[in-house]
């Protein structure tokens, strides 16, 4: 009773009521200042190789479990050898020194890598409490096991995840992500593959005088892949038996969510210039591709956009994960509203203002996070047109990123112009990952830049809103609780929803913490966690402005 009264007192003390104008979302670009010096090299040398356009994945992870989020960048390689012929092509791991400075620890971690890398997917696949790294690349995928001593070991061959397809051989993989599709408590691996590509057979496009990158329709598409975790450090390729590889696409970003509330994780793949896939989990080890029926395969007019990044998040707090997808100029970025109950999605791009506001943009990675902690998730897009497209458009290919503020789940307002001077700087942005690097409760963003210095957007939004981050620790479920959904009930009567996933955006991996902006509420009255195995756990009166660790209750 006493604690209840204290909680109520806190509620009323902190309840300022609605303000006339919301705090402006603001970022300070601090990469150089904090020692985050990385340049993504795509090795472009006037030959217009298709692989130069992609890549640039960024991942965030706490590899040494010190409570401070570290950063990993993927990098290119020489073409056509696809070898990292010098340190300029090395992938890079930067340790967060817990004082908002970073140290390059690539060499000691053993993560310089090999090949033309694309994406990084973070997950603790062996449930040992140390997050591991899976890298996709052009004809080379790599699984690094975190040894727990600051070093990583390449266990790709032993684990059986090098990605060789029986028909297509080694493929060009773009994104990957970890999910527990069969709820057995172990993370499985999904890989999106792009197109058949051979440097020796690169088609020539454009005009005789002016070569340009070919449209993806010039290349043959590829199937995606799914690997089942055997619980012993090895995986079984179940792409065929699960039905995943039956579908040929041109896979870019991947996102996972329990879209219809049945406790099973489904998979969305944003395809480039062909329709996107929604692999609905049937609960028996198989998936049914249902993008068309679910209304997420194409734009509202039936046009296949050049799908890039994707994120499943509940933008209107109705308890169902919605879906945002980025695309190319004149595609518009798409926002699909989940109707629930297995009824699929409605295209909300137009009615939320995103359609026209993003029509002139080309987006790569993205993330739907509550940057101002007002309880409504906003959207950050990493942007740039295809290199040299500017010549055709009469404007620069480099773009400034954009942030859209979620106005009570009804519309998205572009608030980029006031998001800080550093935010206005254009660049060839690609990957983006999201985490709170200084643990101040405001979500930051790290962005890779093609042939330019990476950027770290430190969130300096002057908001008095409260926040809460939940760090899940599965016992029966996978160690990170990926796939868990969390409902937070606030004293002001609102319910907020989010889910645990690292698979966010394009070729990138974000923090596994489940975050909530609480607005003026200094506590969460009730928190309900639905673990991937369907166990439900509740907490009450959880104070705000901290990371709350929750260990899965396992009832006998």
């Amino acid at each position, binding site marked *: 009773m006493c604690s209840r009264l204290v909680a109520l007192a806190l509620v009323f003390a902190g309840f300022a009521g609605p303000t006339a104008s919301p705090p402006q979302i603001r970022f300070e670009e601090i990469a150089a200042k904090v020692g985050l010096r990385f340049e993504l090299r795509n090795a472009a040398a006037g030959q217009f190789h298709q692989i130069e356009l992609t890549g640039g994945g960024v991942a965030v992870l706490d590899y040494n479990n010190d409570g401070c989020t570290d950063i990993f960048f993927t990098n290119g390689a020489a073409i056509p050898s696809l070898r990292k012929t010098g340190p300029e092509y090395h992938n890079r791991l930067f340790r967060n020194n817990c004082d908002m400075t970073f140290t390059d620890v690539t060499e000691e971690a053993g993560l310089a890598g090999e090949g033309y890398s694309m994406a990084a997917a973070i997950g603790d696949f062996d449930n040992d409490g140390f997050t591991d790294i899976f890298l996709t690349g052009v004809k080379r995928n790599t699984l690094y096991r975190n040894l727990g001593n600051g070093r990583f070991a390449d266990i790709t061959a032993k684990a059986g995840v090098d990605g060789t397809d029986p028909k297509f051989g080694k493929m060009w993989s773009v994104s990957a992500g970890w999910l527990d599709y069969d709820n057995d408590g172990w993370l499985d691996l999904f890989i999106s593959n792009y197109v058949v590509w051979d440097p020796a057979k690169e088609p020539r496009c454009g005009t005789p*005088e002016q070569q340009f990158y070919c449209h993806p329709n010039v290349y043959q598409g590829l199937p995606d892949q799914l690997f089942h975790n055997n619980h012993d450090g090895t995986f079984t390729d179940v792409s065929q038996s699960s039905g995943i590889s039956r579908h040929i696409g041109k896979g870019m970003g991947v996102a996972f969510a329990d879209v219809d509330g049945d406790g099973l994780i489904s998979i969305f793949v944003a395809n480039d210039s062909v329709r996107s896939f929604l692999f609905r989990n049937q609960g028996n080890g198989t998936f049914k591709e249902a993008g068309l029926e679910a209304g997420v395969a194409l734009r509202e007019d*039936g046009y296949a956009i050049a799908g890039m990044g994707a994120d499943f998040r509940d933008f209107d707090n109705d308890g169902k994960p919605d879906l945002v997808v980025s695309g190319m100029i004149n595609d518009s970025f798409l926002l699909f509203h989940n109707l629930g109950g297995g009824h699929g999605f409605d295209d909300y791009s137009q009615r939320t203002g995103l359609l026209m506001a993003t029509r002139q943009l080309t987006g790569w990675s993205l993330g739907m996070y509550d940057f101002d902690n007002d309880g409504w998730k906003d959207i950050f897009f990493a942007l740039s047109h295809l290199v040299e497209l500017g010549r055709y458009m009469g404007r620069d290919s480099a773009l400034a990123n954009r942030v859209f503020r979620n106005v009570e789940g009804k519309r998205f307002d572009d608030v980029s112009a006031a998001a800080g001077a550093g935010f206005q700087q254009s660049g060839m942005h690609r990957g983006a990952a999201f985490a709170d690097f200084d643990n101040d409760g405001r979500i930051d963003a790290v962005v890779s830049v093609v042939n330019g210095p990476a950027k770290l957007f430190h969130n300096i939004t002057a908001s008095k809103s409260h926040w809460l981050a939940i760090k899940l620790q599965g016992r029966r479920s996978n160690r990170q609780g990926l796939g868990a959904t969390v409902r937070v009930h606030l004293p002001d009567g609102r319910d907020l929803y989010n889910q645990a996933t690292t698979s966010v955006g394009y070729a990138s991996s974000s923090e596994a913490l489940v975050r909530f902006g609480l607005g003026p509420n200094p506590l969460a009255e009730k928190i309900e966690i639905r673990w991937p195995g369907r166990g439900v756990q509740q907490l009450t009166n959880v104070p705000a402005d901290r990371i709350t660790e929750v260990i899965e209750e396992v009832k006998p």
Partner: protein
Amino acid sequence: MTPLVLILLAAAPTSPGYPAYQKANTLFVEQKFNESFAAIEEALRLDPKLVPALTLKAKLAMAVNRFDVARQSLLQALAIDPTAEYAQFLYGMEAFLTNDTEQAMLRFRKARQLNPSDAHAALYLGLTTESLGQTEEALSLYQEAVRLEQAAGKPKAETLLPGARLLLLLGRLDECERWIHQALKLSPNLRDTHFEFARLLLQKGDAAKAAEEGEMALRLSGGTVTDVQIHYLLIRAWQKNGSPKRAAEHAETVRALETAVQK
């Protein structure tokens, strides 16, 4: 009568290349492109400065995606006669079709200066403007294109559709409906118009009528809207209309079409 035919009539018949050019044009209309190209080459051998022949050569080249050849021919034509309005319009089309929107804008603007009553130039300048994000300017150009066609006594449904599409995107549903009704009146059997009407109806929440219009669009041929676009609309329309079975049939048809393409 197309602008090209008008140019043909206006061309100087005294040119030694003119008969060959006339033959080339007839073959082009009959879609005998190889034969037409040979005749054009003959016409230009006899008179390298025959502007209509250079213009037709560009048109032929664009039909087979040889935009480099088209550009060269049009530059020659415009160097000989800078007031050649159709050559100027095609020069804009060359940029438009190769996604060079900045050049397309300049060239279509010039085409409009050369012939302010050319509805095509207004329409394509509108499309270019829209692709650059200038929606209000695009809308007024679409209106202008419609007005010019009406003034010439030849209004076309196809000219109304870009404006209707843009109005739909902007959420101006009542205006969109007016444009679509005009288009339906002009061409009751145009697939694209029925498709746009179905989209509008679906957005307005009339799934039953949307399904009806969509099915009608599917039965009609021609136009630029693909079968896949219509099937996708029908999946959603039938779902909202309480007929998941009909929706599933359309989804399966799309998958069958995809499989055929992949093979």
